[in-house]
Every structure is written in structure tokens, then in C-alpha cells.
């Protein structure tokens, strides 16, 4: 802070607002343009530094070379709030260009030291909480919940296109505003900004609050969209049919199976199961569960009641169709 003022007083090289915004724009656009396994966002970082390098070292070939090389090292962080690192780096570059004792090592270690925590916080907030929340909002506006459950078939019904549009607008506004704020604050306030925010526990509070909200929405989504119906019926005596779904499971707790399935899936994921492995296993279970080995072949999709273990779209209706009784 004081150093930038000093630089201004001396009438030396200063980063203008335009340079900073230009740098932010480049980063926002091209942060993942050349995303690669070797150094992840390294070339994007160097690209974002181009307006800064031109302002500070423009015309000096040796310094330009050094600056470009300095910023082509391994870098990976959250594209939005990670911009605070760019802001800090720009401030350090400005000090360096004005003759202060800022070594290459100091700049690189600041970048590497901050990129991990920023990626952790940023990915949790934007990818882990805000995106699913807004997606859930978009899905509900689209009308998937109510309509699709009634008919079970998507081909006949249409959703509300405003759902995706609403999601698009909200997530874009969130990402751009957060990104710009952190980029400029990083430059204005320097490293102290990040350490003070991290120390104050504000981020922990934000993450905790967002986790509470996120958990409520995930619970609701589980109830709305995870559907497991047992089509299995047991013939007890002459005309009494026990429907496992309604007569046993729903008596214990409505929706016991979906809730159990989600918690089980979470538990397996936490134990290191790969989601793709789970996807394959679940699809196989669904198909095996649909084999009609207990009764007649279904004539249409919702007709599987009583002939297979699992049942799509809804529970078996107590007034069972006569085809079920023929067995």
C-alpha cells in the first residue's frame, strides 16, 4: 500500500486501472484455454500478465523475457476467487519494477503458497455449493420435478426454458462479480487481504453457512428425484397380497430406500469408490432388477408390477391388474 504510493510520488512506473481490468479480462476468458497436465494454468497466468509486463517492462527485452519465464511456472487455482493471487502478484511486480527488493523467488512462492488454499475454498464455494444450488433452482423452474413424475415419460411434455436461462444469468453474474472483486482487492490490499480474510475465520463461516443451505437443498433433491420402488409382492393366503413397498417399507419411513441409497452412495464415495464404477454397478442392478422372472413379461413400461423386483416410476397400485394374479 505504502509502496505503491511511494512509486506514485516518485513518478515511476504504475499499473493503471485499465491494465488491471485488461489483465482480469484476459484471465477470465482464457484461464482454461491451454489447460494441460504438465503445468495446468501456467500459460494462462503468463497471458494474464501480458498487459502488466508491457506496462512495467515494455521495450526492455531482457526484463520482458525474465517476467514471462517467471510466470510460466506450474499454476492452478480457482478461476474466480483465485484471481486474488493475480492481484497480489501484479502489486509485487509493480514494486519490483520500481526497484524494490522483490526477488523472483518471493513472487513464485507467493503464487504457489496461495494457489492451494484459494483452489480449496473457491472450488468448495463455487463448484461445490453455489453451482448445485443454482442448478437445483434452474431444474425446479424447468418443471422437471412435478411433470416428469406424473407421466414418467419425457417425450410428451415440455419444460419451461426459463429455468436454464435463469441459471445462466445467476451463475454468470456470481462468477464475474466475485472474480472482479477478488482480482482488484488483491491488487489494492496485497497479501494482507488474504491473510486477514483467512485468519478472521470469515471464509469458514461462509463455507459453514453455505454447507447448511446446501445440505437442506440436497436432502430435498433426494426426496424429489431419487426414486426406488420395489415391485415385489408376496402372496400371503388366498386373496391377500402384501406389497413390500407400501405395506412394509413405507410403514417404517416414507422414502426409506432413496434416503438409504443416497447415504450409502456417499459412504462408498468417501471410502474411495470411483463414481463411474458406482454408475455401472447401479445400472446393472437396475436392469437385473427389471428382469420379469417372477411374473409375465410387461406389455408397457409401468406394467412390471409383481413380475420384477424393482419397479419404475411409482409403487404398485393395490388394485393389481388381473395379469398379475394369473401366475
Amino acid at each position, binding site marked *: 500500500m505504502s509502496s505503491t504510493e511511494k512509486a506514485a510520488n516518485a513518478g515511476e512506473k504504475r499499473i493503471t486501472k485499465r491494465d488491471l481490468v*485488461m489483465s482480469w479480462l484476459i484471465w477470465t476468458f482464457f484461464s482454461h484455454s491451454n489447460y494441460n497436465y504438465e503445468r495446468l494454468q501456467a500459460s494462462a497466468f503468463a497471458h494474464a500478465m501480458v498487459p502488466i509486463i508491457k506496462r512495467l517492462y515494455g521495450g526492455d527485452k531482457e526484463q520482458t523475457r525474465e517476467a514471462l519465464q517467471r510466470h510460466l511456472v506450474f499454476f492452478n487455482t480457482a478461476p474466480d476467487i483465485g484471481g486474488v493471487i493475480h492481484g497480489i502478484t501484479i502489486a509485487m511486480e509493480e514494486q519490483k519494477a520500481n526497484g524494490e527488493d522483490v526477488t523472483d523467488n518471493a513472487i513464485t512462492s507467493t503464487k504457489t503458497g496461495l494457489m492451494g488454499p484459494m483452489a480449496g475454498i473457491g472450488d468448495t464455494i463455487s463448484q461445490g455449493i453455489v453451482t448445485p444450488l443454482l442448478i437445483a433452482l*434452474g431444474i425446479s423452474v424447468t418443471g422437471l420435478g412435478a411433470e416428469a413424475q406424473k407421466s414418467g415419460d*419425457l417425450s410428451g411434455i415440455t419444460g*419451461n426454458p426459463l429455468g436454464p436461462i435463469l441459471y445462466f444469468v445467476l451463475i454468470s453474474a456470481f462468477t464475474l462479480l466475485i472474480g472482479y472483486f477478488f482480482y482488484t482487492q488483491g491488487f489494492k490490499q496485497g497479501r494482507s487481504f488474504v491473510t486477514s480474510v483467512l485468519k478472521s*475465520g470469515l471464509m469458514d463461516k461462509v463455507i459453514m453457512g453455505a454447507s447448511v443451505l446446501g445440505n437442506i437443498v440436497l436432502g*430435498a433433491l433426494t426426496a424429489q*428425484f431419487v426414486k426406488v420402488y420395489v415391485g415385489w409382492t408376496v402372496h400371503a393366503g388366498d386373496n391377500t397380497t402384501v406389497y413390500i413397498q407400501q405395506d412394509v417399507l413405507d410403514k417404517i419411513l416414507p422414502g426409506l430406500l432413496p434416503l438409504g441409497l443416497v447415504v450409502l452412495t456417499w459412504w462408498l464415495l468417501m471410502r474411495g469408490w470411483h463414481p463411474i464404477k458406482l454408475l455401472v454397478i447401479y445400472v446393472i442392478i437396475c*436392469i437385473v432388477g427389471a428382469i420379469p422372472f417372477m411374473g409375465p413379461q410387461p406389455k408397457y413400461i409401468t406394467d412390471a408390477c409383481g413380475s420384477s423386483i424393482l419397479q419404475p416410476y411409482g409403487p404398485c397400485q393395490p388394485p393389481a391388474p388381473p395379469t398379475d394374479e394369473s401366475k
Partner: protein
Amino acid sequence: MSKTAKVRWRLSRNAKISLTISTLLVIIGIPTAVQAMTLTEAAPTETVTISLFQAILIGLGYYLSQGPWIAGLSFYTLNRPLVAGLLVGLILGNPGQGALIGAAINLIYLGFISAGGAIPGDPGLAGWVGTTIAIAGSLNYGAALALAVPIGLLGTVIWNARMTVDSAFMHMADRAADKADVGGVIRANVLYPQAWLFLITFVPVTIAVFLGAKFIGDVINGFPVWLLGGLAIAGGILPAIGIAMNMKFIFMGTAIPYFFVGYLIMVVLGNEVSIMVLAVIGVALAFLHVAFLGDRVKTAAKPESKKLTKAKEAEASR
């Protein structure tokens, strides 16, 4: 002197091109979105055949969902099946249905998180190609979801091809930096990787959608009824994975009970609560929770960050 002048001109041209493309997309996007509102009324039930022009638009859309041209926001927008579904629907003349199918497919990718460059399947490809096949073959809810899974897996191949080859452009950037060639670094960051990305996204998707979408839809519709029923069951079960993947990041510490609170609110009120009502309840509870925890929130959030880094390491190591 002339060298630097040339470099400056090149930068501004790059910036201008990206800005122009983005502005054009927004300008085209708004009227089409408005048109979408009016189109919802018509719901054609006959099967859709995909013209070459439509296939090209879908291929282009998938490229944009991976590229930087939407202000770098494509990862959060066009890459999500919810948005991709709407756009595919627009291209095929049925935006309402596209949005609905996209919303359904998005449930599997609800907890999609790209950490350290490793992705478990590609929601973008699942959204763009999955919705196309679902509309072209008038598939049911479950079949569309079950189909989106292998398609998303194919997307991982494209992603790996991109991440691997892009490493070569890093070395071009190094060589440009050795010569203090600013324009060379910019070209290595934008021009070459984007040309490569265009090649591996636009070309295969356009061809696959033009030649294969109808065929795959027909094959699936030819399945026996019980198998279609099995896919429909999968439609109810697969969202569990999307939700659980998201839970991996937030179902922790003192926030755990709220998952069951949200679940019971929905079950007790019979699935009729709007998500906004739920969000308001959620914000209120979140505020109370943080206020009551006070400074203990830091210790409560501690295992969270540890688990997160562990999960990230596990993802990155794959």
C-alpha cells in the same frame, strides 16, 4: 521498436476478436431465448431427423462449452446439461423439451467438480449429445439418463486428449518466452490449443450427431419392454450418485443433520414445496447455525478442509 509495436497490435486484435465473438453470441442468444418462449406451445410428437446444419450447430455448441469464448464462463454454463439441453432443444426446434431432458441429465452431474484437472465424466458431452439422441429418438426419462452416462465417459477421452496435447503448447510458450516474444506466448495460450480443441470437439460430435443420433435412438427403442423398464428404474436411481458426489464436499461436521431436515421437509409436504421456499428456510437456518457456533465454526470446519484436500488428492492422482 517496430517489434513492440507489432506485438501491441496483435494483443489488441486478440482481445478484439474475443470480445466481438462474445458480444455476437450474446446478441444472437437473447432473441433466440425470447423465441424459445413462444415455441414452447408447439410440441411435435413425430420423430426428429437431424440435418447437417443442425449437427454442425450442435458440434459448435459443444466446442463452445469447452472453449473460452463465453467470457470463460462456459464451464459453469454451456458445459452443464441443463443449459446444453435448452440449446440443443432450440437447435432441434423444441426448446421446452430440451430444457427438461437437460435438467434430467444434469441430476447425475449435480456434484460434478473438476479438481486439479481430473474429471469424472464430461457433463458437457452428456448434455449436448445425450439430449440430441433423447430428442431424436423420443426416449423416455430413464433411457435418456442411462444413455448420458456412457456418453459422459467418452467425454473423458476428449478431455484427456486435450490435457495431454496442450502440454506441448506449454513448451512453445517457453520458447516464445526465451525470445521475449509476448505474442508467441499469447498464441501458445490461445491459438494452438483452441485449434486443437476445435478439432477434437467439433468434428467428432458433428459426425456422431449427424450419422448416429437417430440410429442409437432407434436401437434403444427396439429394446424389449422390461429392459426399457430397467433403464427407467435407472432414471430414478442415478441421481443418487450426483447428489452423493456433491455430499462428499458438504455433508460434514455439524451441517450433516440439515440434510435430513431438507429431506423430511420435502417428504412431509409431499414434494410440493418450491425450491425458493426451501432456500429461504435454508438461509435462515444457516444464519442461526453460524451465529450459534460463533468462533467455534473454525474448529467445526476444520475436518472439512482436510477431507477436501484428501478428496482432491485422490481425484488428482487418477
